[in-house]
């Protein structure tokens, strides 16, 4: 098999995932796009492992490690998204602007955007929770 086929497919999948990460608004859809990017890298790893076919089978071992880390990442990411949803009432990543530059509010964050200080995170959370 020509090596260009899996390599080009992996590149295109990576670009699709990149578009999803940049263009999506819901945090869970962003996580899905991250999964697509990780899968593109896995496909490259498997293809190069089969091409080089070294005795250590580095590509397949690294693919297994990447899959494991992706599973850990999706678990932690979903926990963080659920926590943000519980505190802010939204899972849209461009409405979570608590750490944004206060000179230019990005989204329609209802509370705490002008006086959001990164040092005082907990009162900001409480305020946003009260106004949510």
């Amino acid at each position, binding site marked *: *098999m*020509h*090596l*260009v*086929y*899996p390599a*080009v*497919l992996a*590149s295109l*999948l*990576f*670009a*699709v*995932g*990149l*578009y*999803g990460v*940049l*263009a999506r*608004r*819901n945090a*869970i*859809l962003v*996580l*899905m*796009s991250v*999964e*697509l990017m990780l*899968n593109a890298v*896995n496909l490259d790893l*498997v293809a190069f*492992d*089969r091409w080089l*076919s070294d005795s*250590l*089978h580095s590509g*397949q*071992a690294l*693919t*297994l490690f990447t*899959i*494991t880390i*992706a*599973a*850990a*990442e*999706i*678990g932690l990411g*979903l*926990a*963080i*998204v*659920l*926590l943000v*949803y519980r505190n802010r009432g939204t*899972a*849209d990543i461009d409405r979570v602007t608590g750490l944004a530059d206060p000179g230019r509010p990005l989204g329609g964050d209802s509370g705490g955007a002008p006086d959001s200080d990164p040092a005082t995170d907990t009162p900001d959370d*409480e305020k946003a929770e*009260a*106004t949510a």
Partner: protein
Amino acid sequence: MIHSTIAHRGFMSPTGVEITFLLVGLATLGAAIVTVTTRQLVRAALWLVVALGGIAVEYLLLTAEFIAWVQVLIYVGSVVVLLLFGLMLTKAPVGHSPDADSENRWVALGVAMVAAATLVWVVADAFRSTWIDLHGPGGTTTKVTGAALFRFWVLPFEALSVLLLAALVGAVVLSRRRRAETPPPGTGPAPVTRGRDA
């Protein structure tokens, strides 16, 4: 099935494995594009199943059978279910949601196009005359993969299990409701918010 000798190598005479790879790859790419562009959030997760399953088939075509079944088990089996649970728990709209994409969609499209063009150009230029010998030695059955994993990669494997445990504990700690935290007295809407979330 395929006798890929030196004489048959070329773009103009693709082998059967290459044609299969190309067709499955087109389906995978289409499912991935629908995943990142659909306006219905649950359908995005379901199209992600198609994309990840297509990648599993590509692994099988690359003779990496253990990776293929791990892909089916972990990605299609658990990660997508986790994502669906996440969509459900964040009360994602089931139907058509017009604001699924943010305003900088066109910037993202430009960045993705540039990235795709650059990557495809580099990859196609670098591996223009490189072939994978799918019928040669070094076939990676599950036995070979397991032997390599537990002979040469034991230490990273164990470190990774510790990392998984840490991620598990971290996820539990993050998603646990704090019992000691009482709602602040005097604020009217706060108990209502907690009651709605609970």
